[in-house]
Each structure stands twice: as structure tokens, then as C-alpha cells.
């Protein structure tokens, strides 16, 4: 187990390094640069800025400097937001996204898993059909549609929920609902099909024959086996929701990491792009390792290798 985790972490470091290197060279290969778009700056000032941030040096030298600094935990200064460090930006923006995203993850699990189980248990009944229709429609609606419809109904028409910022608990309702909509529907579907599979297994009949109560056999035997696909899905899902959805952040004007990342890309803020990409990749890789370990805890038969 320990050996496995060490191996995975080493592999993760390699993955993050490769992603960072690819991003660095791709980003620099593209014509244009961070200071080109600013018309107000004279060519001399542009050159001075470039010199200040070391952008005038040859590419491989820039790469080596960046990597050396990054290894020491220094992700550099933002090129566009003068006077702010990249780590500073990430550490102020990420908690905002993570709070909304974390709530969304919890909500989608709390709704998706039980409803999926109920649908499987009541297979073929009205409740099952209702849940199936809702989840099928749920995965067909793009997030920007959900966001705008919520905004229109609760923000513009009924005027019961605030539409801007994140000042009180009421502000969280719409973004969390919008963010958790798709995952909830998806988890419901996953849960229903894996639960159906589990309910048909021989050990369920054995449990019944032993005289176990309905609820014990479902929650102790079926659920534990049926939850595995949901855990697999949770890895990437948590990464995407916690690091911020650009659409949700844009529509509900939440100052989160997702919006910051897109802003950095379009304004060619090289250091911020690199910093956020490394952060996202690291998050993703760590989540994958966590999912594997959780897998092992839930199902001890799984061999980690």
C-alpha cells in the first residue's frame, strides 16, 4: 500500500512536470505576448517590461529559471496584475471556488446517491420512471442554460435570490444549484444502474436467506458494491467543480479560480497560466490517487499495482 502510494506520487510528479513543460512551450510558441495587446505602452516600455520579467532571454533559459523557481515553491509574479504574486492570486481565488464547488459536490452526492438507489429498488414503478426521466433530461441541459434559467426565474422574475457576488448564504443557492445539476443527474444514473446490478447478485439472495433485514442488506451489502462507479466519477468531478466552473462564475459574478484562469489565458498572463495549470494538474493527479485509495478501502478485493 505504502509502496503503491509512493510510486503513484512519483508518477504524479513526472506527469505534472510534463504538463508544465508542454504548457510552457506551447504558450511561448504562439505568436503575440502578454504586453502586445496594451496599445498604450510604447515599444520601449514593452521592452523594459519584458526585460523586467525576463521575457527577453532565450526560451530555454526562461524555462530553466521558471522550473528552478517553481521547485522552490515560487510561481512568480503575475504579468498583468502588477504587484501580485501568482501563489497569492491562487490562494485567494481557490477558496472561493472551492467553497461553492464543495457544496455542489456534497449536494449532488446527497441527492444523487439516494435517488439512484431508490430508482433501482423500485425498478419499473412510477418513482423509477420519474427519476429516470429527470436524470436523462438533467444530463441533456448545458450548464449555461441552467444558470441563465435559474437567474431568470429566481433573480429577474421572482426576485427572491440575489444575482451578484457571494455576500450571504442566499448567494450560494443558485451557483450551487447550477453547479450540482449535471453531477446530480449523472450520479443518479450511475447509481441506478450499478445498484440494479448489485441487487441481482447472489450475495443479496444469501443475505436475504440469512434473514437480514431489507435495509441492512441494501445499505451494508448492495450499496458498498454499487458505489464504486460513483467513486470513479467523483475524482474528475471534484477537480472540475472545486477549481471553478468558468460559466457559473461568469454568470453569477463569483470571483473564483475558473474565471481567473480564462482571464489569464486570454490576456496571455504567462506566469498566471503556468501557475494555474500546474495547480489544476496537481489537483487532478492527487484526486486520482485519492480515488484509488478510497477504492481499496471500499472494496478490499481490488489489488493496487
Amino acid at each position: 500500500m505504502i509502496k503503491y502510494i509512493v510510486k503513484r506520487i512519483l508518477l504524479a510528479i513526472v506527469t505534472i512536470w510534463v504538463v508544465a513543460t508542454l504548457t510552457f512551450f506551447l504558450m511561448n510558441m504562439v505568436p503575440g505576448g502578454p504586453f502586445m495587446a496594451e496599445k498604450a505602452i510604447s515599444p520601449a516600455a514593452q521592452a523594459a517590461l519584458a526585460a523586467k520579467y525576463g521575457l527577453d532571454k532565450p526560451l530555454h533559459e526562461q524555462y530553466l529559471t521558471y522550473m528552478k523557481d517553481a521547485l522552490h515553491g515560487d510561481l512568480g509574479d503575475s504579468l498583468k496584475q502588477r504587484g501580485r504574486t501568482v501563489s497569492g492570486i491562487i490562494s485567494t481565488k481557490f477558496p472561493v471556488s472551492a467553497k461553492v464547488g464543495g457544496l455542489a459536490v456534497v449536494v449532488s452526492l446527497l441527492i444523487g446517491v439516494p435517488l439512484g438507489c431508490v430508482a433501482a429498488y423500485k425498478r419499473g414503478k412510477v418513482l423509477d420512471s420519474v427519476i429516470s426521466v429527470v436524470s436523462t433530461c438533467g444530463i441533456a441541459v448545458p450548464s449555461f442554460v441552467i444558470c441563465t434559467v435559474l437567474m431568470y426565474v429566481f433573480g429577474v422574475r421572482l426576485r427572491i435570490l440575489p444575482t451578484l457576488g457571494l455576500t450571504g448564504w442566499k448567494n450560494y443557492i443558485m451557483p450551487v444549484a447550477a453547479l450540482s445539476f449535471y453531477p446530480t443527474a449523472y450520479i443518479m444514473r450511475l447509481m441506478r444502474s450499478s445498484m440494479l446490478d448489485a441487487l441481482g447478485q447472489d450475495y443479496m439472495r444469501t443475505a436475504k436467506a440469512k434473514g437480514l433485514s431489507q435495509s441492512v442488506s441494501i445499505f451494508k451489502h448492495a450499496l458498498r458494491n454499487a458505489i464504486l462507479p460513483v467513486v470513479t466519477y467523483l475524482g474528475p468531478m471534484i477537480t472540475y467543480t472545486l477549481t471553478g466552473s468558468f460559466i457559473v462564475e461568469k454568470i453569477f459574478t463569483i470571483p473564483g479560480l475558473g474565471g481567473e484562469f480564462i482571464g489569464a489565458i486570454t490576456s496571455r498572463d504567462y506566469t498566471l497560466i503556468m501557475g494555474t495549470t500546474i495547480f489544476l494538474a496537481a489537483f487532478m493527479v492527487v484526486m486520482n490517487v485519492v480515488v484509488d485509495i478510497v477504492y481499496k478501502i471500499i472494496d478490499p478485493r481490488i489489488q493496487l499495482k
Partner: protein
Amino acid sequence: MKKNPLSLQLDIDPEEFLPASKEEKESLVIMRESVSFWKDGFRRLRKNKVAMASLFVIIVIMFFSFIVPLFYPYSYGTQIKGANNLRPFQYSAAEQQLIDAGESVFPHVFGTDKMGRDYAIRIMVGSRISLLVGLIATAIILLIGSAYGSIAAFAGGWVDMVMMRVVDLIYTIPDVLLIVLLSFALDAPLDALANVPGFSWIKTVGHNMISIFVVFALLYWVGMARMVRSQILMLKESEYVTAARALGAGSGRIIKKHLLTNCIGTLIVTTTLQIPSSIFTESFLSFLGLGVAVPLPSLGSLCSDAINGMATFPYLLFIPAVVISLIILSFNLLGDGLRDAFDPKLKN
């Protein structure tokens, strides 16, 4: 032969032991007509009402987005003077005069947008773009993904290992980053190409659109590749392949009869389910402003444009939103139906 009077043997008519005639033999054969894989699948599909209904919806949407615009009286780019922000079935002052004069004016079924463009035709052309992106991107994904996945599965060993690590890597790179960088990078070369005769369509479609296709070709095939690889790995080890090999079947026959036929169901299903997810991605990117070039509409960019006027003109937002959800929903349901029909093992 004369029978012994003391014999206990039964009296048997030798006639009954004559070999059976051809007709008699045939009457005993109980065999239905052999049903091919496709026939069987389509028969099951036809019985599935939900899948047939969604197929019908898809055909209707395709009819409206590909055929109706050809003879629709308005075009998606023309700005009608004085016809800004009309509500559905409302006419501009000039058009009202024409109607009063006894001429017939085609109604603006969904009204017009703030530039005075007929909204119905913009929706139709927008869904055409979304459908085209979905279909073309899916074709690219199918081609690259299935080739990559099957090569990895067949090669096995370290080739498989390296190929799958590459897939993991591609999973980790943020896609929006690549799309924006690519659209910057492809700007100059595509501009140059657009001036070459025969490539002027690039200007209409827009650079972003082409970079979206390139990104699909570069990034989104990984899911398909994983799927095909696991499928072939599983099939290679299955008992009936061993049985076929034991019966003396050659590799060619095994690939054709067993691997391909068993894979094709999954491939059809994954492809059909990939179409809505491609449309999903395209609408998301168009919503961000990374999609088609103006004035060409796409369902995502129509939604995005309508957000600012949401309070006064909600239908401008809701119509494209409903259409895109409907397209994705129908493809999803059709995909589910195809899965039940062609890949019964995956049911539930």
C-alpha cells in the same frame, strides 16, 4: 421372412424402416430464418418507442436546419431596417405598410434580435452549425480514438503502457487553454490560407471553429480510445474466442466474425453518445465566445448574446436553450436505445 409361431417379437412392418424421403426430412427441420446482427438490432430498435421518437425528433430538427433555410425568405445575416427587437409574429412599420397594401410578408416566427435579424432563421442555422460540429467532431474522434485504442490493445506490453500514459497526460491538460492558444496560433496561417482560392470558406466559418476541430482531434479522442482498448482487451480473452481458436479458426476469421461484430455495437453506441457531448462542448465554447465567427450563429453564441437582454426578451434566450437541450436529449435517448438494441450485455 417367416415368423416363428412361438416368437414373442412384435409384428413390425418393414415399410416403417425405409429411409425418409426428402420432403419428410424437410418437414422435421425446425429452424427460423437466420437473423443477421443488423436485422436483429434494428428490429429491437424499432420496438423501442422512446428511441424511435427521438430519432424522429432528430430528423425533424435536421430537416429544419439543413433543408428549410434553403428556401426561407430571410437569411441569417441580413439586418432588416427598422425591425429591431420585434416580438414573435410582430411586423416592423415598413412591413406593416406592405401588409396593409395587400402584399404578404412572411412572419417573424420567433421575432428578431437587436440587430434586426430574423431569429427563426438564426436558430435554424445555429442548430445546423451545432449539428455539423457534433457530427464532424465525432467522426474525427471515432477515427482517431478507435485506431489508437485498438493499436494499444493489440500491441500490448510496453507499447500499450506508453500509449496509455500519453492518454493520461492528455486528460490532465486543461482543454480551454489549448483551444485559446490554438486559435491564437492558427490565426496567421489560416488567414493566409483563406486568401488561397478554394479556401475562402475559412473566413465564414471562423478560425475558432477550425481550432475547435483541431482540439477535438487532439484531445477528445482519449475517452473513445480507452473504451475501445478495454473492449478489445476483454474480447481477446473471452472464452468464445478461445473456443473459435480451438476449432481451428484463423486470426482473420476471429477478427471479422468475433472481435468486430462484438465491438461494433459498443462503437455505434459510444459514437452516438459522443455526438451530444461534442455539441455540448461546442455550445459551451461558443458561449465563451470561442466558437463560430460573427455573423454566423451557433446555439451557444445565441444564448450568450441573449443573456444581457434576458429581462426584456427572455424568449431570445429560451428558444436556443430549448433547442440545444432537445438535440442533446434526443441523441442521448437514441444512443440509449441503440445500446439496448445492439449491445444487450450493457443493458441497465
